[in-house]
Structure formats: structure tokens, C-alpha cells
């Protein structure tokens, strides 16, 4: 389903906050337990990034969802936040293997555009599958900047020593081989269905057309990123892209806050 009202609409009545409240926040609040039950396995590149950090590194997981990354590397001090209080409650106890964690995770309820973190204090940040839920480019860029602002600036001669790094992951427009079949010609603004099966707490495959009457279909808003768009957004707000790439229907970038603007 194409979300024609997002961004492309010239109507002055479009209010991104209201739109995201309906098409992102309310949906996650409603589907949180079902959503969480399908999200256990850390994505390998994210797990590698977390494993590469020295013990005692302090970091943020902005949009932590059900918290599946919070316990991946227990020698990090990783604080999660999410806009959905229901997901945050699940994230508090998630040990990353779908079980209850002994040591509870550190999590807060917060909006990615109003993060409650001390500036320049984090060694690292991750934001996985989050930025694509913001419905205008200026909001997506503001969210990138808000994450970069939390990172420690570098020191030393080249200004790179101890510099904080953020890993960002977003859904790609170019996913011709996925079951959704989007490609370069598709609309970048989409409402993606999530079906909760009545009574069972299980989800259908989203493409399942044999949907009984009592199921509920929710639509989440996504902005699908074109090749190069994530890097452009990082650079547009003064950040520096260290590495970037494509993995399984997603674009990713590792970046730093850049020189003070």
C-alpha cells in the first residue's frame, strides 16, 4: 500500500507527528507482544559492531524495540530507549535469546527526536530499523543529528582518538528479491501491513491472502531508503560516514558526529 499522504502530499494539513502517532506509535503499542515474539535473532553486522567495542564502552540503542541487542555484549553499558512503552517493558527483561534476562536491561521510554541523553557522552550508538518510521526527510535528518549529538567527539592530533561511532540501519527501497518485491520504481513511502491472528497471538505471513474474518490488520508507515540516501542524510547534518553498505534489504552506515558545527 502506498502512503500517498506522507511527505509527497502538498496539503498544508499534513502533520507528521499526528501521522506517525497513528501509523507508527499506536501500531507498535498494539502489536508489541506479537512483534516481539518474531524478533529474537540479532542481525549479524549489528552483533559484530557491538562485539568490536572495548569492555566498559557506554552506548545507546535508540529505538531498541524489544531489546534484542541490549544483552548481546554484556561487557558494554548499553542503554535502550523506545517510543513504545509496551516494547520497552518487554525490552527490560530480554536477554537476546527470547528468554528472561537475569540482570535487567537499562531502558527508558523516549522519542528519538527528544532524546534524554547528556550530549557528547556516548562511545557508541545503534539505531536499527528506526529512522525509516519518520515521515519527512527533515525529521529523519533531525533524528540522525540527535543521535550524533550524543556521541563523544574525538581527541588527539587528528581528532579521531576515542571518537564515538553510531551504526544506523534502515529499510531499503531496492529489495527486488524479497517477498515484497519493491524495487527502484516503487514509491518510497509505504504502509506495510502487520496481521495479528485472532486469539492465537501469532502472526500471519504479511502476504497471506487467506485471512480469516477475525484477524486484525495494522499498517505501519515506512520510508524506504534509496541507495546513497542514508549517507546523504548523515552528511547533510554534519556527520561523517566511515563505512556503509547493503545487507538483506537494508542500507546501513557507521558514522561519527563530525567536526563541531
Amino acid at each position, binding site marked *: 500500500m502506498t502512503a500517498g499522504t506522507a511527505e509527497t502530499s502538498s496539503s498544508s494539513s499534513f502533520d507528521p507527528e499526528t501521522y506517525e502517532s497513528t501509523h507508527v506509535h499506536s501500531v507498535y503499542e498494539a502489536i508489541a507482544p506479537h512483534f516481539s515474539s518474531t524478533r529474537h535473532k540479532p542481525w549479524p553486522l549489528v552483533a559484530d559492531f557491538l562485539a568490536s567495542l*572495548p*569492555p*566498559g*564502552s*557506554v552506548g545507546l540503542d535508540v529505538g531498541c524495540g524489544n531489546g534484542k541487542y541490549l544483552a548481546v555484549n554484556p*561487557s558494554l*553499558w548499553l*542503554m535502550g*530507549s523506545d*517510543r513504545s*512503552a509496551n516494547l*520497552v*517493558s518487554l525490552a*527490560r527483561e530480554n536477554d537476546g535469546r527470547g528468554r528472561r534476562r537475569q*540482570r*535487567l536491561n*537499562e*531502558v*527508558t*521510554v*523516549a*522519542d528519538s527526536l*527528544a*532524546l*534524554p*541523553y*547528556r*550530549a557528547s*557522552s*556516548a*562511545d557508541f550508538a545503534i539505531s536499527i530499523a528506526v529512522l525509516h518510521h519518520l515521515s519527512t526527510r527533515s525529521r529523519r535528518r533531525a533524528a540522525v543529528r540527535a543521535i550524533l549529538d550524543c556521541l563523544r567527539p574525538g581527541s588527539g592530533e587528528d581528532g579521531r582518538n576515542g571518537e564515538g561511532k553510531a551504526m544506523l540501519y534502515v529499510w531499503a527501497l531496492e529489495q527486488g528479491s524479497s517477498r515484497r518485491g519493491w524495487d527502484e520504481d516503487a514509491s518510497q513511502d509505504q504502509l506495510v501491513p502487520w496481521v495479528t491472528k485472532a486469539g492465537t497471538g501469532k502472526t500471519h505471513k504479511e502476504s497471506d491472502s487467506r485471512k480469516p474474518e477475525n484477524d486484525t490488520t495494522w499498517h505501519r508507515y515506512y520510508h524506504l531508503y534509496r541507495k546513497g540516501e542514508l549517507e546523504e542524510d548523515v552528511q547533510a547534518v554534519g556527520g561523517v560516514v566511515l563505512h556503509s553498505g547493503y545487507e538483506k534489504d537494508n542500507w546501513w552506515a557507521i558514522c561519527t558526529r563530525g567536526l563541531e558545527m
Partner: protein
Amino acid sequence: MKVISLNFLTCAVKSCKSSGAAFPLHPKDAELVQDDIELNAQMLLNILPRLDWAALRTNATELGFPELPAELPTREALEADEKKLKDLHHLLVETQIMEGKLVCRNCGHEYAIREGIANFLLPSHLV
């Protein structure tokens, strides 16, 4: 919410970001719980220099802990004195605020903590 996390949190209101009065947030009506967690000395020794020590001193006193020294003890001093390190572990990692509020001294806004989770969503007039 553990005491260590307080050291990395500030007010979510945009106009408070540049104010020194917004950090640290101040606990109010805090109900504390002590957990039993194994000390990871390497991890804690690496975290300590990342803390804002003055802010930690303020929060520790507010939560009823004994006054911390004026300066962060050196790594060598802590490696030589396990009790000191364990006391810091107890304060930072084992102590949780389960219920209460966090108050911003710049704008006065109070953020609720329930079941160990602080909520930083802002009412519309503060966004």
C-alpha cells in the same frame, strides 16, 4: 534504572539541552532496590573515567549514600583497594531506582519512574 544511567541522562526538553542546570536530573521520592550482581572489575574501571564525577557525587548524596571523594580515585588506587571498587559497583550497578521521579532543575519538569523504567515522553506544551 540504575544510578550509573543517571549520569548519562538529562532533560529531554530542547531548550534545556544547553543549560547546565538540566544535568544531572535529581531523583525525588526514590524507592531504591539493591540487586546482587557480580563485579566486572575491568568493565567498571573502564566506565569510571566516562562518568561526570561531580554529577555522580550530587546524585549519590541525594540518594542517601555516603559522600564520595572530591575526585575520581585513580585506576591504580582502585585496583589496589577492592573495597573501594566494590562500593562503587554497589552504588552504580547494584542500586536501582524502581519508583520515583527525576526532576529537571532548569524547567522543573518531573519524569516518572515506574517499575524501574523512566518515561521521557514530553507533554505537547514542552515539545
